[in-house]
């Protein structure tokens, strides 16, 4: 009994909304707030670097004149990016769903976009574009993958019988799309938009850090860093969080209105499914083309924009910088040294993030109440700009491996947790009943049934965790430790070392894609052995 209700609540699909549950959620939130207030008031955490909620509120009130312009600017960047990114994503999703060849060709580009670490491409966007454009582009990129995959999934799950009806009356490809597929995909697309909305807000804020504009919550945060005023920073961070949550809530509402169905909050981390069709020769050709496409797009974009070659490095420019130029040896040495610091931490961080997500998902089965009250804190960690928390983090954790590890866990665990919890929730009731009938404890149920059965979701969670782990490590290196790729990127910006800025961006994307592909290979192997299908 406890199992399914707990999971329902933790993954966001409410199956039971009794008054008691509302009360216990409120009670937990109140306990949390009071504890935070006490910790803040009496300066119990990091010598007062954690402000009490009332201090944050008071500060927010006295700063109220500043906020409207900043919120408006962030809203503009985020909403424009949201429109453009999702428009393209839905079109691309339809194209990929309709044409398997296009899906296979686009695979490289899709994975590359999924794996782009915002921290690495934000400086490049700022170099290449001006004004609001970097914000819009980063917001759009944040939306694209989620909505594109949701569209593909939605269309490919259309009821075959409906398609047959339209076909029987002589409906062509367009009629199928218009009358059946897009309508059938609507709930999935709306679920995608819901997850994309906060991503657009965060994308805009991230680009504001480096964009040099005067307005926007990101710009406000940067301007306020020098004031040593944690209450202000928390106020800005919470304003950003509120924006993201409101955006999420609006689309959740629209979705509920339009579709009146409950759906999982997660969205696939796999690009559209590829069924190998045709000869191995055409398979190789398409795979090669799919790998080349991202590089081609990169090159074409720079040509079209006409950005000077000194700032904007083409693929050839990066190759030249890294292998042919007189400074190539020095560049290689610095890059390898940085990778030597970043890669091990990425692997450890990813493992730790996944382990934490896994434990949390298990706990949500065994001890649902505790996990539920932890969720508000977890949500805030997902939307709070980390730069606002840096002083707190370094005061609590120092500037060694532990701060990298914790930042990486906080960046990694949430999507992985949601996916895992969903997987545990989908375990067949019948299989559980068998062991329960033999008197198995919750732990034995987990060990014998739930964990093995949710293996596909574990791999889906790993795929989600890969690029985020690298992102987390780079953020920590940039803000706290001054090591590895994150620091190399930051320093290269200061030294106008454009070649290195591009190299770090490219290398970080390649690493993410490589890890992602490794996970997919292992996943296929393991699941095939067990006769399972990958979770989408």
């Amino acid at each position, binding site marked *: 009994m406890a199992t399914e209700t707990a999971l329902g609540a933790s993954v966001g699909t409410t199956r039971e909304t009794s008054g008691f549950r509302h009360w216990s959620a409120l009670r937990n939130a109140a306990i949390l707030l009071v504890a935070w207030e006490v910790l803040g008031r009496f300066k119990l955490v990091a010598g007062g670097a954690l402000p009490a909620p009332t201090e944050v509120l008071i500060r927010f009130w006295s700063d109220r004149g500043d906020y409207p312009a900043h919120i408006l600017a962030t809203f503009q960047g985020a909403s424009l990016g949201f429109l453009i990114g999702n428009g393209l994503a839905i079109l691309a999703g339809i194209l990929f769903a309709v044409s398997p060849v296009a899906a296979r060709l686009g695979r490289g580009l899709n994975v590359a976009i999924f794996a782009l670490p915002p921290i690495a491409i934000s400086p490049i966007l700022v170099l290449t574009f*001006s004004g609001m454009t970097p914000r819009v582009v980063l917001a759009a990129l944040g939306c694209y993958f989620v909505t594109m995959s949701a569209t593909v999934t939605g269309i490919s799950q259309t009821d075959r019988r409906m398609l047959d009806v339209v076909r029987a009356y002589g409906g062509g490809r367009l009629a199928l799309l218009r009358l059946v597929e897009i309508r059938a995909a609507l709930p999935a697309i709306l679920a995608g938009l819901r997850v994309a909305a906060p991503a657009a807000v965060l994308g805009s804020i991230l680009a504001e850090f480096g964009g040099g504009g*005067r307005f926007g919550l990101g710009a406000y945060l*940067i301007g306020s860093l020098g004031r040593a005023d944690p209450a202000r*920073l928390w106020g800005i961070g919470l304003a950003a969080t509120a924006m993201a949550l409101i955006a999420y809530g609006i689309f959740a509402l629209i979705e509920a209105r339009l579709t009146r169905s409950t759906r999982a909050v997660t969205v696939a981390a796999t690009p559209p499914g590829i069924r190998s069709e045709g000869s191995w020769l055409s398979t190789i050709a398409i795979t090669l083309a799919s790998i080349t496409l991202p590089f081609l797009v990169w090159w074409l974009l720079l040509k079209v924009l006409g950005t000077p070659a000194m700032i904007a490095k083409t693929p050839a420019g990066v190759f030249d910088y890294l292998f042919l130029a007189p400074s190539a040896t020095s560049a290689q040495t610095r890059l390898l040294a940085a990778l030597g610091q970043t890669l091990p931490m990425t692997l450890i961080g990813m493992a730790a993030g996944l382990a934490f997500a896994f434990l949390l998902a298990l706990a949500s089965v065994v001890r649902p109440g505790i996990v539920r009250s932890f969720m508000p804190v977890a949500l805030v960690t997902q939307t709070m700009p980390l730069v606002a928390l840096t*002083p707190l983090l370094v005061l609590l954790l120092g500037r060694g491996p532990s701060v990298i590890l914790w930042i990486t866990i906080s960046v990694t665990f949430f999507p992985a947790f949601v996916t895992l919890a969903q997987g545990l929730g989908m375990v067949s009731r019948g299989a559980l009943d068998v062991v329960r009938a033999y008197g198995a404890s919750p732990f034995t149920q987990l060990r014998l049934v739930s964990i093995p059965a949710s293996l596909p979701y574990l791999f889906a969670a790993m795929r989600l965790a890969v690029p985020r782990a690298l992102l987390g490590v780079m953020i920590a290196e940039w803000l706290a430790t001054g090591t590895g790729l994150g620091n190399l990127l930051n320093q290269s910006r*200061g030294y106008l070392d454009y070649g290195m800025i591009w190299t770090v961006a490219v290398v970080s994307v390649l690493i993410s894609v490589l890890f992602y592909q490794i996970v997919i290979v292992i996943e296929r192997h393991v699941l095939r052995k067990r006769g399972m299908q990958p979770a989408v």
Partner: protein
Amino acid sequence: MHLSLNRRHFMGLMGAAATMPMMGRMASAATPFNFQASWINDAEFAGYFLAADKGYYKEAGLELEYLSGGPDVIPESSIIAGKADLTLTTPDTTIKAIVEQGAPFKIIGAQYQKNPIGIVSLAKNPIKEPKDLIGKTLAVPPVNVISVEAMLKISGVDRAQVNIVPYAYDPTPLIKGEIDASVDFTTNVPFTIKQAGEEATSFLLYDFGFTIFNDTVVVTEETLKAKRKEIVAFLKASRKGWDENLADPTAYPKTFADTWFKGTGRSLENEVYFNTAQKPLIENAKGVFSMSEEAIAANIEALAAVGITAKRDHFDTTVLEEV
């Protein structure tokens, strides 16, 4: 005379004007001129704000577009990309880019005769000279690491004996004692620390051998050729703004509160403190922005200590002679 232009003719004329820049400039009353600042809008740029508010750029025939900077904005990138005609930089990074990447930059002036960057620490745990840093943790913005390494080397302090960590421009870790000192503008941070109830002590890197300018006025060689007249006009108007602002550093910041400073999240008192503290670093007997031969030589010498081979040729003093 009545001129009627349809859209196509108008575009054609615009095209012709673009191919003949001299004509275009003579014809129009104010020439667009884009200025990329090196930081968010604070007192560091008070002189330019004043000149803009009082219409000095307009009088000089310029339509000024002011682009704010920030921690992640690379000012030099704006002039390479053609977003800006003129910018303010730190000379070490600019000259490094000229020497190592062949960037076509010319330094034509310097706002700060003495670089305001220094080592800031708490009075209760004071760092009064480079030697005090031995065994201590120093937070340095990644951009300034070379400057700090130069100062340590010049002062005979082993780099390995100082624990250098990234500085994200938030003084909280310093106030809470997580780090012993940070590298920041001494014209600004001591005020913030005082606000937080602590007393700060600081020294300039400049006073310990790292004798460089800051906010050096930089243009590309191409712009210098094509827009020399406008550059001279900009410097002239800006100097006028600075002179007036520095005459009484407390007078003008308040006039920017609801315009230039709006939304930066900094207090007016902070800007007045900054404006007052920067006065001796900017003032110059030969006029704001001037670069004396001795000062240029001192820059070249200091940069040599970090392995940046600056040349006299990277500085161009002839533009200011026309101001």
